[in-house]
């Protein structure tokens, strides 16, 4: 049984279907990436999972319990972090965290706050007004808030947006650590495909409110069989152009002695040997395999 189970979740706003009958589950300790272009239904899904938007149809179960009838019980073990969600701007970082700790009934909250503050290196900001912090500092404080109750499941909506690379890397390391040490389940959205490939065990692609792909990041990239072959050569380019035309390949010359060929992965060795057999001296071979970003672009561009 999954820590989070979503069945036939649907949400319409008038004639517009934001989320269209989606079902998925997340197991304990798993990090599930929720990807999709803007307007795909990611935010509405997260809002429903947090209980601040009511679905039209469907069921949400956390820890085997119906979310709508066990709201308080479920929310005690859930938390949310987003770069776009802010705390109370007028009050200080410390005051905001104290309030949140009380909302989640955190025991020994002062120690818990100070431990997290120390990890995220925001000790000097404790007495600053939240409003006065930079975007990166606010994101770090939001992350501290989301970890206060040691949640069993965390919903993270682009938590590293606006963080500098060093802090973003620390945040990802922290996410990896809490997953490993505490078996925390995480539902993660980001537009940074590198992050998704690094930390997610599984990815769900949403498009127009529907799940259009679901797999591990590696398996998803395997679904794209096209690779990019970049060959640097020492010969007349007409020889290569003639051969590739005969082979019905898509290609272009980026420089006088560099050709870029988009081809099926399995055809790459034959093409390389074929070009060599035309007395062409290949000085460099570079193969670009498809990334999650390619998968994202491919899915996003399908109407």
């Amino acid at each position: 049984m999954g820590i989070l189970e979503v069945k036939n979740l649907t949400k319409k706003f008038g004639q517009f279907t934001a989320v269209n009958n989606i079902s998925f589950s997340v197991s304990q300790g798993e990090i599930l990436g929720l990807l999709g272009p803007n307007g795909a239904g990611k935010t509405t899904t997260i809002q429903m999972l947090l209980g601040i938007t009511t679905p039209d149809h469907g069921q949400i179960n956390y820890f085997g319990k119906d979310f709508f009838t066990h709201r308080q019980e479920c929310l005690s073990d859930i938390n949310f972090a987003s770069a776009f969600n802010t705390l109370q701007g007028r009050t200080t970082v410390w005051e905001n965290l104290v309030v949140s700790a009380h909302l989640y009934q955190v025991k020994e909250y002062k120690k818990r706050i100070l431990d997290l503050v120390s990890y995220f290196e925001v000790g000097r900001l404790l007495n600053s007004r939240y409003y006065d912090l930079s975007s990166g500092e606010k994101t770090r404080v939001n992350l501290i808030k989301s970890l206060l109750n040691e949640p069993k499941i965390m919903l993270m909506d682009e938590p590293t947006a606006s963080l500098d690379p060093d802090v973003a890397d620390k945040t990802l390391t922290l996410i990896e650590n809490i997953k490993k040490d505490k078996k925390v389940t995480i539902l993660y959205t980001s537009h940074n495909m590198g992050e998704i490939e690094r930390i997610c065990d599984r990815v769900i692609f949403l498009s127009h409110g529907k799940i259009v792909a679901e797999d591990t990041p590696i398996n998803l990239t395997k679904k794209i069989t096209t690779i990019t072959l970049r060959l640097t050569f020492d010969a007349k380019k007409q020889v290569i152009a003639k051969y590739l035309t005969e082979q019905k390949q898509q290609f272009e010359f980026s420089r006088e002695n560099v050709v870029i060929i988009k081809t099926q992965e399995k055809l790459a060795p034959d093409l390389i040997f074929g070009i060599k057999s035309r007395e062409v001296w290949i000085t460099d071979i570079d193969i670009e395999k498809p990334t999650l970003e390619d998968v994202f672009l491919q899915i996003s561009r399908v109407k």
Partner: protein
Amino acid sequence: MSINRIKAILLHEMFMMRHSFEVINDIVIYPLLQIVIFGFLTLYLFGLNGKTAGGYVLIGTILWQIISITQYSISVGCLWDVWSRNLTNIFISPISIYEYFTAYIISGTLKSLFMFVLASILSIYVFHFNILHLGIINLFLFYINLILFAFGFGIIVVGLIFRFGSRIQAFAWAMIGIFQPFMAVIYPVSILPKSLQVISYLFPPTYVFEAARASIANPGVQWEYIGKAFFINIIFVYLSMMFFDRMFKASKKKGQFARLEG
């Protein structure tokens, strides 16, 4: 009900007050100014119509602050979090709506009690009028009724904000003023035209203000007025809660609640 979560909102309110001059202005300075203005008007009326009419004005003005401050505390308290885009953080925590409003009733009651004490002292020393002459039991019963009404009114406003967003935020501090003339705060109901008297008696505070005025001439608890105020208040608070529940559900259904964050 969790004491900790109620305490969280109370701490939140306390921290907000510490950092917001506007709140101090709206719940301390502005009400005190109103009492000072009406207090001097009272002194003026002492000369014209005798002590009773002046007492009516001062009692009404002081008691009105209980409604005004408590409902302001509930509705503007919620708006601060809408403006700061912090409302989601509160409502994705395990807090229940009952805990949330319980905290705001406590907070509103404490703020209005503080103001009431301050206004009473001011009234004694500056305007030579002691509101305690109405009697402790009377004041307690007035207080309960006025807090109940303010709570009911406050949650109606919060319900409207949740449903329609911050574009109707002015209701938080202005809507109560629209109904004030009907509640016969500083004048007896009998002054109103007959048709307006019918409307006036629909509001629980009308009975409280009538009871307060009656107590000046005839000391003691005005049970008939208090009983009616309490009865209507129970119905009003129940209907307010139903209204809020409808608005809150509609807001979450339409996606407005999540969009309150801007």
